[in-house]
């Protein structure tokens, strides 16, 4: 048994009075620099991409959630959100600016709260997918699942940089993009959990800290 088990908000995060309350349960990881590593930037954007594929009004829902969670001091406006999401290195118009930890925390909170709102549909789609898998049927046999996958593939193709080898390897293969969409769907399910926000946050830095 690992001796040190306690889920407690980080005391270091609490010292920053500028940090919105909702983000204070997310401690700063011991990184060499206070900016997000590549995988974190990529993952946060892809999870939001999956949310947009689930919800027709996903883009607006993200902005609405920014206001609801009172994160407008961090994500000031639509263009700023666009810039943050474009810190994903796979993006067609990727931004070279770093993603700060507090910006990443805001994106984690938004993702998890939106995922919670979409809990029912996320569960339904995963259940449908697992059911079809067991029967060795393709996802097209379930209307909503097929719509989600179609939309995800379209979003991915239109927004990611096709000149990148890794993007090209996805866009050339519908099955590979479907697998990515399903994996993100499963990850969104975990984001809906009791400690989803803390887990998603910590997971962004797995293998990156000392």
């Amino acid at each position, binding site marked *: *048994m*690992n001796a*040190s*088990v*306690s*889920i*407690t908000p980080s005391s270091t995060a609490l010292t920053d009075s500028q940090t919105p309350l909702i983000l204070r349960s997310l401690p700063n*990881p011991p990184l060499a620099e206070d900016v997000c*590593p*590549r*995988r974190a930037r990529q*993952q946060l954007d892809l999870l939001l991409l999956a949310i947009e594929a689930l919800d027709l009004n996903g883009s607006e829902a993200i902005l609405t959630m920014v206001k609801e969670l009172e994160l407008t001091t961090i994500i000031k406006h639509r263009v700023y959100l666009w810039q943050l999401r474009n810190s994903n*290195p796979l993006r067609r118009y990727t931004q*070279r600016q770093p993603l700060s930890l507090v910006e990443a925390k805001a994106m984690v909170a938004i993702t998890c709260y939106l995922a919670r709102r979409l809990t029912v549909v996320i*569960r339904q789609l*995963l*259940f449908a997918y*697992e059911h079809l*898998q067991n029967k060795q049927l393709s996802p097209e046999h379930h209307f909503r699942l097929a719509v989600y996958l179609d939309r995800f593939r379209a979003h991915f193709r239109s927004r990611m*940089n096709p*000149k*990148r*080898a*890794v993007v090209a390897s996805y866009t050339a293969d519908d099955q590979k993009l479907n*697998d990515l969409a*399903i*994996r993100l769907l*499963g*990850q969104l*399910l*975990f*984001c809906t*959990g*009791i*400690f989803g926000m*803390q*887990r*998603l*946050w*910590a*997971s*962004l*830095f*797995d*293998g*990156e*800290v*000392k």
Partner: protein
Amino acid sequence: MNIQIQRRYGSNCTLTLDGLSDRLSSLGSSDRPPLSILLNVACQLPGQASPLLGGRDLLEHLVVAVSSYAQRYLSGVPVQHHQQTPLVSIDPIGTKAHRLAIQPILLQPYQPSTPLLEVELNTTQLFELVEAVDQFLQDNQTLPDLALQVTPVSRREAVIHRPITRQIVAFVSGLSTLAIAATVLFFFIPAPKPIENLGQKITTANNLPINGTSPTNSPSPQSTPSPSPVTTASSDPSGIFETGTEISEPQEVERLWDIVFDNINRGWRITPTFEEELVYRVAVGSDGALLGFKGVNAAAENETYIKETPLLDLLKIPPTGGTNPEIVNAQFKVVFKPSGVLEINPWRGSAQ
């Protein structure tokens, strides 16, 4: 006097804890008494006929394994098991299912002949288990001494599986012009006067025969250690490629890999005019700074082409004077492709 308590967490997957409260003071109060002594736990997994039964050991190992795996599911970064055969483990089966394995020693009734218990869970079932565990962890009136710390997996603990090749397209645009890769050139940053020396190297390089082949009259390498197949002129004044101490620790190489990738990718701005890929062997210091590079193929040694790459700009001048053959470094194979794709792999083990 102890009071007996049963607490149940989860819906489709349940954890049922039977235990005692040893707080006499809580009697008669409206608060829920704390369950502080666990007698037994039953874990009813989805799709299983009967629950798993055990004591505190089972609960503790299950909690740690489940929480750790939930994080792994989110990050995709596996963790090394501390024990060779962990008492409770969860591992992926392909990309769509998960195998929970529990050593029989944790289970009641224990029989030495009982085999390892293995249960296959799909993702929603796994999530049900995570939620049951998290509900229990959230309840500070049940085994308050047991809570879970959510922290990122360290570099040392992580088992990182990288794609074999890391590729990216640099931000270059415009038309490529025809250029012939011919000059044979070798760059290395020598200490202590690298700028001047570098200039000299370029000058020297300009004087090399432009014939598309490796010059036979260039200083020959003293030795070419495995796996170096470098065929170029190889005056290596500080000897970093030959005698520098190469970092072999995978986590450290991994960390430097990220840094070198970021630096080169960020610095590559000029539209390629080269029509065949440029392949370099690059050495970086423990701080990620570029300490030296040399061309592996002929095109890589063309002076014009080198200037299209950010390698010269990124070269770091060592602070100490004199050559230092003991410089600790990690080496990478860096490939600039005419299409704008940048490909970086650790030198050792890369297919050269």
